[in-house]
């Protein structure tokens, strides 16, 4: 206890001292804003000034949340304010003025500007200033003795000998040591009050969490939409033109003289190769069969393309697009990994929907040792599943086999 108190003293002093500084400045600003605002209210110019005074709680709150780190190190307090749903000053001000956090911050600002800082100053003086003056008694006596032969310590005790001065010093040290604990305790209480007013309350914390979850889901949805847009653009643009080109080349070959026909044939082969590559690329971006037929057929298709033979046992209804897409890409990534790293001879994909949860398992008979922490593929998939409240787990002991399973709670479509 004593040791932690002593260790906390420098930070406590810094916290209280800086609090006094902030408080003094705040008092002046609030007084000026308030007075000028009130005086000018009949002219309407005052109203914005008053609003400014109300909103001053925001920056003060932000500063105080940082300053709290002096009193209690650790993670910074989260910002209790919501992010405005739309841009613009009006939307921002409307949101801020309706938030309870704004008014709590304003209350704290008023408290700091008019009550807390004088209290801080008094405590600092009582706990450090007074003992300090006592300890410094010999020095003070030395300075004043030439003129008057005595000194008044802390404006209370008159002393005129070094014996008395030394006694004062000893007394000062004792008082100082005795007051350190109350000083630190006061600072903690003071910080607790600040925390009460400045930290987000439970509802606000929950709302923030919901906000973050929503924004992450929006990001994933935007990512999916972008995939589809790219697929559509390639399909409706480049792919159709290439088919038309290949068709033109095919017709031209029919009617061309032999020496030209050879060169046309070479060009034709090249166009067909590009077409094949483009088809694979488009399929990789977003397979149309997933949208048209759902998971079972899309997984069968992924199995067809797998380098390692895959046995499929999937019995699934249709789900929301985001669910189907997350599950499909997870399986495809898993099969790609099996083909690349596992050394497996066979793989199995199983999928069931029970108790409102989609469960998919990909198993192989390879050498194991897959680590989801290495490589970004699986981590990215886990993140995508997390957005849907789903989980991905990889069980892969050295020597195998590797089992990747995913689970997503979801209603069927």
């Amino acid at each position, binding site marked *: 206890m004593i040791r932690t108190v002593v260790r906390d003293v420098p930070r406590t002093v810094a916290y209280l001292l800086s609090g006094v500084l902030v408080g003094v400045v705040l008092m002046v600003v609030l007084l000026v804003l308030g007075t000028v605002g009130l005086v000018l209210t009949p002219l309407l110019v005052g109203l914005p000034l008053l609003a400014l005074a109300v909103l001053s709680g925001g920056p003060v709150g932000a500063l105080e949340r940082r300053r709290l780190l002096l009193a209690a190190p650790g993670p910074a307090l989260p910002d209790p304010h919501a992010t405005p749903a739309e841009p613009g000053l009006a939307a921002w001000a409307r949101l801020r003025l309706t938030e309870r956090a704004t008014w709590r911050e304003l209350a704290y600002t008023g408290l700091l500007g008019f009550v807390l800082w004088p209290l801080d100053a008094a405590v600092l003086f009582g706990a450090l200033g007074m003992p300090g003056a006592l300890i410094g008694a010999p020095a003070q006596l030395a300075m004043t003795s030439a003129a008057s032969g005595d000194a008044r310590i802390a404006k209370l005790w008159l002393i005129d000998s070094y014996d008395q001065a030394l006694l004062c010093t000893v007394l000062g040290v004792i008082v100082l040591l005795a007051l350190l604990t109350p000083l630190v305790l006061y600072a903690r209480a003071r910080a607790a009050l600040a925390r009460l007013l400045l930290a987000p309350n439970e509802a606000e914390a929950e709302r923030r969490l919901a906000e973050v979850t929503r924004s992450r889901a929006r990001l994933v949805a935007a990512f999916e939409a972008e995939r589809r847009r790219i697929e559509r653009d390639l399909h409706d643009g480049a792919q159709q033109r290439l088919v038309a080109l290949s*068709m033109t080349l095919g017709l031209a070959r029919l009617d061309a003289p032999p020496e030209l026909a050879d060169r046309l044939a070479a060009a034709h082969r090249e166009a067909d190769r590009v077409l*094949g590559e483009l088809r694979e690329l488009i399929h990789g971006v977003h397979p149309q*069969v997933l949208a048209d*037929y759902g998971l079972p*057929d899309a997984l069968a298709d992924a199995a*067809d393309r797998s380098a390692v033979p895959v*046995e499929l046992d999937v019995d699934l209804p249709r789900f929301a697009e985001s669910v189907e897409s997350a599950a499909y890409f997870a399986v495809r990534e898993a099969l790609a990994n099996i083909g690349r790293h596992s050394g497996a001879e066979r793989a199995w994909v199983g999928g069931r929907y029970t108790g409102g949860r989609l469960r998919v398992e990909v198993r192989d008979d390879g050498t194991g040792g897959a680590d989801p922490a290495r490589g970004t593929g699986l981590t990215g998939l886990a993140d995508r599943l997390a957005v849907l409240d789903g989980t991905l787990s990889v069980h892969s002991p050295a020597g195998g086999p590797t089992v990747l399973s995913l689970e997503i709670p979801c209603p069927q479509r």
Partner: protein
Amino acid sequence: MPAALKIVLAEDSVLLREGLVGVLTRFGHEVVAAVGDAESLTSAVESCAPDLVVTDVRMPPGLTDEGLRAALDLRAANPSLPVLVLSQYVQRAYAAELLDTGDGTGVGYLLKDRIGQVEQFAQAVERVAAGGTVVDPEVVRQLLRRRRDPLAALTPREREVLALVAEGKSNGAIARALVVTEAAVGKHIGNILGKLDLPPAQDTHRRVLAVLAYLRG
């Protein structure tokens, strides 16, 4: 040259539509209607009574599989109407669904890439119109890569033969492709039908069932 076919064509890309009309005309067929969406396809078939329908899978308004749906509906209404579906995707599911209509004869599923090989494309068109069954070699190739029952029982040679059957080739054409006698092909096909447990019935129908078994995996 075979008899000229009356063809209804559905393809939403103007570029491809014009190109397809050009290719089909070049091979002596008559495109009696060239439309750009699934609904017009259905009404064009009603009014023109074509010998063959050629349609894209992805069509307006939804740009998903409207063309295929329309083709399936047309086949359900008239199982003997030959339909050739052109797809941008190598997709077993589309081909299997198509083959399930009618008795699986007079249907084709081809990748759009194949149109460029104009002569082979023309052959496929004629084969489907004549009541044959054509599955794109790319789909077949993809299926060959995996080994699963009931196909596990087939020998490599039998697989090759089945793949060529899926492409719509006659016994004679298969014999030429594999450089064997037609009798040998007949024997292979008999073995395949036996291993896939397809009881003797009308021969062309059993060939389709074999291909279907193959597509379903």
